[in-house]
Structure formats: structure tokens, C-alpha cells
């Protein structure tokens, strides 16, 4: 079986992450309950006429994928695999509300077409003229990890040699409103630094697109090796440690081999205790990081986590803003990521310096 390498990254997020020569050098502060992506100058990446027609999710993905493809110095790929929880949700909202408001009259197809979950994958393929394998996974907080796993298997089996993988979700007004109504979004604003100490229900919702070029050939500029991805539809708190140990053991690693633990804490007092199990238990002597104070929570926020881990492996630095505890790793070789959303759809991802 071949090994799988992360060749490049491309990120559009609530932080200025679209410039690969920087690494969280300037932080965009907020005091809010939802945070929007920092917009790159879209016309630098997409023809303005095309950009005007594009949904935000498509636009962010077009830029993030272009950055990743450019950095990897590839013009095309064998496959495009996308993860998205909600797709271009603003268009879904637009079409549903138009159906209701106008009693099914005066509808136009544009928002219906863009609401299809695989619109982003289809648009990237169209832009590249890529006739290869094209899949879209839509399973809440493991949408991106499903895409990652699919890509990894194909590269390992040498069914493809270069694959573009990404995670994308956008914020939509109505979706925000209903999630606020059920306290999945915090009712009270928090600051970036105060997310984890808010002691309130719900998360700060965000949006973004993070794309990666994966290959089964290593190069001098590779970010790292994607060692393993595992997802779990359910996982009880009491089983979490056992699952983490099993995952590491399957990859011939011990807890002490993990240099950094990257966690998906989102400041929701009801569900952050899943992370607490690993923080206080198994990995209490390990340097721990978090990132959702930077990216916000969304179904594919964990793709921002992989962006962070990839950047750390490549730059061999850890920006202070992501530290979750006071420990400092002696080397930055092996990074374990763990994420879940509201106690469901858990994932472990393992990356390593190469």
C-alpha cells in the first residue's frame, strides 16, 4: 500500500488564511455569535463575471482549491472529493422561502441548481475541465473526514495519484436563526479569547473552505503524511479513551508518541466535556491545541483543523493563539486530531512529518 502525502493547502476562513506565506500572523478578533469568512479579493482568483453568479460556498471553494492546486503545482487532478454539511445553504433557503412566500409561483431555477449538495464539486470540475472521479459527502461533522478517507483509500490502492479534497460550508441567515432558536448557537456574544470560558450552551457558528492536494508521491514541499482517518457515528464518553488507544495502536503508536493533540472544542458547555476526557485523561502530558475560536463551528470546521496541523508540520511552529494548555512539545512530528459535534459523528485523524 502506498503512503499518502499532503502536498498543499488552501484556506478561506474567518481568519486571513488565504495567503500561504503567512501562518495566523494577524488575528481577526470578534465579539459575536456567528463569524463570517475573511474575504480574499475574489477577482484575483476568479473572473469577476463568474464570481458574481457564484454562491459564497462555491466562491470560497474556488479560491481555496485554486490556492491548493497552484501551490502543489498541478494543473489537474485524478479526483475531486468534497465534504459539506449543508452545501450552498443560502440558495436552499432562498428556494424554500420563495416556494412558501409565493405559493410555488414565480420560481427561477438558479437557487435550486446551486442548492444541490454537489454543486461545489461540480463547479470545481467544470472550472478545471476535470472528468475524473467526483464525490460529495454530506454527513454533519464527518463530511470532510469521509472525503479524506475516500481519497486516502484510492491513493493507497494506487487507483489515483493526485486528489483534490476539501471541506466547505457557508452561513445562511435562516439556518442561523433556527439554530439560535434551539440554542445550538450561543445567545450571548463572546470574544475570540473568551470562547472556551463562556460556560454557556451552543457554539459560535462560522464558515469556510479548506482544500488540500493529496498525492501518493512525496515531494520536497510536502506538508506531511496523512497516516489515518477513522470516523464513528456514535461514541460514548466512557468509550473515548479506549477508541483513541485503539486508533493509535492500529497505527503502531503509543500515547507518548503523539506530540500534539488538536481538539475541536467549540465552547458549548454541554458537549466540550468529550474533549475534556482526552485533555484531562490520556493526553494530560501532551501539548494540546484548539482552533474553533478562530474558524467558528460548522459541519466541516475540522478541515480547518487539518489546515492548522498541516501548517504546523510544514513550518514547525505553533502559533500561541491555538494553545489549549501550557505544555510545549519537544518535537512537532506526530499530530492527532479529534473532533465531534454535539456528541455525534466523531473523528480521529493522524498526520505525521515526512
Amino acid at each position, binding site marked *: 500500500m502506498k503512503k499518502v502525502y499532503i502536498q498543499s493547502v488552501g484556506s478561506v476562513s474567518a481568519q486571513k488564511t488565504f495567503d500561504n506565506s503567512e501562518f495566523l500572523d494577524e488575528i481577526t478578533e470578534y465579539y459575536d455569535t456567528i463569524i463570517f469568512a475573511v474575504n480574499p479579493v475574489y477577482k484575483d482568483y476568479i473572473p469577476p463575471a463568474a464570481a458574481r453568479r457564484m454562491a459564497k460556498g462555491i466562491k470560497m471553494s474556488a479560491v481555496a482549491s485554486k490556492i491548493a492546486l497552484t501551490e502543489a503545482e498541478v494543473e489537474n487532478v485524478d479526483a475531486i472529493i468534497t465534504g459539506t454539511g449543508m452545501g450552498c445553504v443560502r440558495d436552499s433557503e432562498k428556494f424554500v422561502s420563495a416556494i412558501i412566500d409565493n405559493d410555488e409561483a414565480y420560481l427561477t431555477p438558479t437557487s435550486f441548481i446551486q442548492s444541490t449538495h454537489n454543486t461545489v464539486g461540480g463547479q470545481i470540475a467544470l472550472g478545471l475541465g476535470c472528468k475524473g472521479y467526483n464525490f460529495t459527502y454530506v454527513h454533519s461533522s464527518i463530511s470532510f473526514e469521509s472525503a479524506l478517507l475516500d481519497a486516502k483509500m484510492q491513493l493507497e490502492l494506487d487507483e489515483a495519484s493526485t486528489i483534490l479534497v476539501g471541506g466547505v460550508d457557508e452561513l445562511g441567515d435562516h439556518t442561523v436563526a*433556527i439554530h439560535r432558536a434551539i440554542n445550538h448557537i450561543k445567545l450571548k456574544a463572546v470574544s475570540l479569547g473568551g470562547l472556551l470560558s463562556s460556560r454557556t450552551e451552543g457554539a459560535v457558528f462560522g464558515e469556510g473552505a479548506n482544500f488540500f492536494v493529496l498525492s501518493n508521491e512525496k515531494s520536497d514541499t510536502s506538508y506531511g503524511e496523512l497516516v489515518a482517518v477513522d470516523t464513528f457515528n456514535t461514541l460514548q464518553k466512557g468509550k473515548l479513551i479506549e477508541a483513541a488507544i485503539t486508533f493509535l495502536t492500529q497505527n503502531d503508536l503509543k500515547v507518548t508518541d503523539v506530540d500534539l493533540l488538536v481538539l475541536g472544542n467549540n465552547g458549548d458547555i454541554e458537549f466540550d466535556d468529550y474533549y475534556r476526557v482526552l485533555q484531562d485523561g490520556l493526553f494530560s502530558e501532551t501539548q494540546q491545541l484548539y482552533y474553533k475560536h478562530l474558524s467558528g463551528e460548522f459541519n466541516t470546521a475540522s478541515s480547518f483543523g487539518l489546515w492548522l496541523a498541516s501548517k504546523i508540520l510544514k513550518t514547525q511552529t505553533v502559533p500561541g493563539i491555538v494553545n489549549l494548555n501550557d505544555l510545549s512539545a519537544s518535537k512537532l512530528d506526530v499530530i492527532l486530531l479529534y473532533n465531534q459535534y454535539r456528541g455525534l459523528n466523531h473523528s480521529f485523524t493522524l498526520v505525521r512529518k515526512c
Partner: protein
Amino acid sequence: MGIISAIGNTVAENYDALIEGRKGISRISKINTIQRDEIMVGEIAASNDALIELLGLPPENNYCRTALLGAVAAKEAIANAQITDIKKYRTGLVSATSVGGMDMTEKYYYDYLTDTSTQKYIDGHHAGDSTQKVAEQLGIEQSLVTSISTACSSAANSIMFGARLIKSGKLDRVIVGGADCLSKFTINGFKTLMILSDTYSTPFDENRKGLNLGEAAAFLVLESEEVVKAENKNVLAYVKGYGNANDAYHQTASSENGDGATLAMEKALKVAGYEPSDIDYINAHGTATGNNDLSEGRAIINVFGSNVPDFSSTKAYTGHTLAAAGAIEAVFSVLALQHDIIFPNLNYKTQMKEFSLRPQLALKEKGLDAVLSNSLGFGGNCSTVIFSKQA
């Protein structure tokens, strides 16, 4: 395997309808839409309440219709595969949907904000929710459970991903399939694209007027060779080949020459180690839209030349069940193999002028070793799965 569609609530009922040429297309009765008299649909007779009762769900459940249909079909699949202990092997679930919980979303869209009694359905807002509920119904825990949404090709892709999960040794057993219910969202969406027929759909007919939407769910149990041996299982069919390609032509329309579908079929043949002549029957995507049937027909000619095997579209029976279609037609393909029978392409009258292809019009008994099934969708997504009698 398990299925619920407009032509029956079980595999046996679906088979009987296919054999008897009985279609499940009618005027819509369960959704109050102004399009009622302008469309025909493949609607499942059972109401949500009837499905809830069938599944034995508590009244406070928050299942959307997609989840209800999915659970019914998946449970039949598990029983049919004689699985009594789902935890005995590493078992995952890969389900496809495009509609997801949209039926509830469009019903309670504004009520969600104020009426707390409707808010239980907000969790079903994301497409993976119906899959999670199917997993729950099957007792799949702490495992790989995911959803695919690539428009009308989705469920074929579930089968493909499931097969790869077994091939790579990640899982021993994967339940694969898809579910989609009818909704105002899809009815009006396809209506704006002007591809809905106001009468019975007529796949591959010169005068085809568009598709009939349908609702359905189907699941198949894929198992590794080791499980089959250890359990001494009776194998219904083998997933012999699969291929996925993108047309990269237009967001909703297929290219005129069917480039993507051609590539998908070629890839699937290659994976199967087959020549085109090894295929005995094609269960075509055949939606009966002007664009699809022309593009797919040309793709079939691209791959099979002048030796096109018997082919038919079964969508005139069930309607186009969107993300579920690939699974519905996988079940039909396996039934064709099991019974050595080709299902007719209903409602066909007039030869298309662009080529000389003519679908199979009557039920035909014929020894079948390999069946190829196409699923094509928005976003240029083209998928082919080949099922065979022999490993």
C-alpha cells in the same frame, strides 16, 4: 437487499410489479402542491403515520419521510441477508440522499422560529440525519456511517464507496443504498428546469416530455469474501465493477455526446475486467428527459458500438427517485440476474431520430451473467456499477 418504492413495500412486491408491467405512477396525493395537475409522480402509498407504526417509533420521534423510508428498506435488507447480530463484524452504513429532511423543513420553515413543538425537526436539517436514523434502527454504533449526495447518481456512489471500504479492508460489511422522499422543493425545482412530464414518462421515446419524480429507498448488504465464507452465505450477486466520472460540461445538463457517462461505463468495465460484450443487460438511467436519454444513448453507443446489449429504463415504473435511484436500480439489476429476466421499458412508442437504439419493450427471459446499471446526475456526476452472477 430491501426496497420500498411506488411499486411495492418489499423486494417481492417490487418484483411482482416489474414482472406484471404494473407502474406506480399517479397524481400526487400527500403533498399539497399547485403543480398537482401538471405532474405525475411515483408516490409510496403508506403515510408517515403508517410507516411510523410499521417501525414502532414513539410519537415524539423526529423522523422525516426520507428517514422513515430508509429505515423500512434497510431493515428488510438486514433481514433478507439473515443478519441477526449486526455487531459481529465491522459493519458500516453508506446512504445517499438529496432531499434529506427537506419535507419537514419546507413544512415548518417559519414555524421553527416560534413553535417549539416543531423544533425537534431542526436536527434533521442536515442531509446526514436520515442516515444516522437508519443506523440507529439497525443498531450500528461506533462505526463508519456516512452520507453521499451527488444528485441523481448518489446511491450508485454509495455502492461504489461501500465496495471500496471492503476492498481496502476497512470494513467487513457495509449496508449501502439511498433514500429520498417527494418534496415541494424537488417538485418545484425540476419544474423550473422544465423537465417534468405532465403524463406518464416515456424513456428513450422520440416524443418524451420529461421525467416523473418518485420517492423510494433501497439498501443492499455488501459483505467481504471472508464473511461470506465464515457464515456460509448465499451470495445474491457480486459488485464486479464500478466507475465514476464527471462530464465537466454543464452544472445541470449532460454533454450531448455523453462523455462523462462513456468514461464511467469504460472505467467500470475495466475494473470488472470485462469486454463490452460481457454485459448482458443495461439498466439505463433513462429519466425520459430530452437531454438525458440522448446523452446516455450516445454514451451507450460510444461504449458498445453496434452491439448494444438489451437495455431498458425502469423509471417509468417507479418515477425518478433521485438520490435513491442508483440503489433502486441496483436491486432491480440483482433481481434481473437472480431470475434471468429483463424488465420492459414501459410507455415507449416512437423511435428516437438521433440513433437506432430501441429499448427492450417486453418482459424477456434470458440467461444473464452481468448487468450494467447507469446513474447520472447534476454537477456532471456519472456513475456505473456492474453486477455479476459469478465472482
